[in-house]
């Protein structure tokens, strides 16, 4: 698996920073052994949040990377962040800037 792991010091995204994410969207959490699948937009968001992007920046990234006319990218980004919290990959106190 090719990892896109980066080294963050932000404790809010420390778990995300340790994830191994393959180009095809297979995600491995070495802390718990849990594995996940993300689709391409999910992978873009996961990496964007891990890199500390703001909500606006995430929306711009989705718009740049995908043909997303008419989509509510802001809502989707916020919902995805919620999913990461539900799976224990982000702390509940995390908020997108």
């Amino acid at each position, binding site marked *: 698996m090719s990892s896109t792991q980066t080294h963050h010091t932000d404790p809010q995204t420390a778990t995300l920073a340790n994830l191994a994410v393959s180009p095809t969207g297979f995600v491995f959490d070495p802390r718990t052994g849990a594995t996940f699948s993300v689709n391409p937009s999910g992978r873009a968001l996961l990496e964007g949040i891990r890199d500390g992007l703001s909500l606006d920046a995430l929306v711009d990234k989705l718009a740049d990377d995908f043909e997303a006319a008419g989509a509510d990218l802001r809502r*989707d980004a916020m919902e995805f962040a919620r999913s990461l919290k539900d799976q224990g990959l982000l702390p509940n106190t995390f908020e997108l800037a």
Partner: protein
Amino acid sequence: MTTHTDLTKAVDLSRKPKPLYARPTLLRHQSGLMNKMGTQPRITPTDAIDGVPVSELVAQYGSPLFVYSQRTIEHRYRELQSNLARRYPKVQPAWSYKTCYLDAVCRTYHKEGSWAECVSGMEVNKALRNGMPMNKVVFNGPAKDEPTLLAALKGGAVVNIDHFDELAAIEQLAKTHGLFPKVGIRLNMATGNTPRWDRFGFNLDNGQAWDAVRRLQAGGRLSLNGLHAHFGTFILDADNYTIGATKVTAFVNRLKRELGITLDYIDLGGGFASQNRLKTQYLPGDQVTPSLAQYAEAVTRGLSELDYAEHELPTLITETGRGLIDEAGTLVTTVLANKRLADGRRAVVVDAGVNLLYTAFWYNFEIETTAPVVGVPEPTVVFGPLCMNIDVVREHIMLPPLPVGTRLLIRPVGAYAVTQSMSFIHLQPAVAMIGPDGQHAEIRAAETLDDLVRNERVPEWIEAGPQPAAGRPATPGRPGTPVLPRLTPLSAADRAIRLN
């Protein structure tokens, strides 16, 4: 006309089109879950049984170790008794000896008021040994030996006849000994469950049971005072009991109406499922096994049309075994080794196998750790200690890596596991019981080599004679061939070696 150059100017062919957007998804892989209604793989450790640390039990009695909870035995018995008694005025449970005939277990049931249900001379003698008078013994089964049968008839046991040959044999026995005993007959019938249990008793649906009653009456020696039916085993649909009991009720009413026979008892057998999980079972036991209240309701609903005054109603005898005791039994086992199979699966070898869990061939037991174990659960095969390929305790279970020496709990194993366990390759382990106040004691000592060989005999011509030459029969006393040392009892030091 548009030229090639114009086209490249109009559409930038070198630019890769962007993928269509789809809402982001994050899916957790649910390996080990059978479906959305299933249970999570259990990795929360259970370090005590009825409050007694597993480590304390193993230190005192060894591993592997069967452990029975007296509290659970008593609780389940009282639950069944009260549920039946609320719905039918005369109820008499009889403990199914074959399910577990350890004295301490049987006596616990007898102290609660249970009779003994036995299916062999050995079991009857065990019941008598446990203080049961013969008139509180229910003697069933297709192979009743004559001495026990005679004692049972003389002592007023509930004797349920299985087939016509037995009917004739009992008749002859009664004539020989000048008896006019009361007997019951066993019925079988279709109740909707499969496979149909028609190998025991007389068929009700095709008239064979009616013929048996007429035959019994014609003999002039025996009088019918009861009926017995056992609808199957591990019956997960309680309605089968209502169907069966309704058919029995119709037969009872016909006996009274047409032949003037009134009965002392109706024995509706056992067959209640435990919360164990059959290999063929889709959902876990705690989701599909009817409660004792549901079984009691189903049984007694079928008896509601009995044409008897309330004070004359036949006693309802039950023979529930598995449904009462399975959850009371735990097998403590210890991890001996970890392996990685050729197909990539993890395997673990434990010190208890199908020698102790014959029931593993049809159950998927729960297996729990007794202490936290670090690591990622993954599909694991649990092998027993036998040098036999078939020794598989669980074919597939999610377990973390288990260090050698890890204690595991296999449950529920209270029903049949002890009585069906065998001294094969390894000696049989101890059985302990935990009392209601947390006290515990060994209720069966671990088997020794002396126990195993106690009944063996070596014929003199083997003991004293020479070794035969290849291809020739032994010739006692022929000189020039080696002589085996005589078998001698083990020394105390040898005996102290735990061979198990």
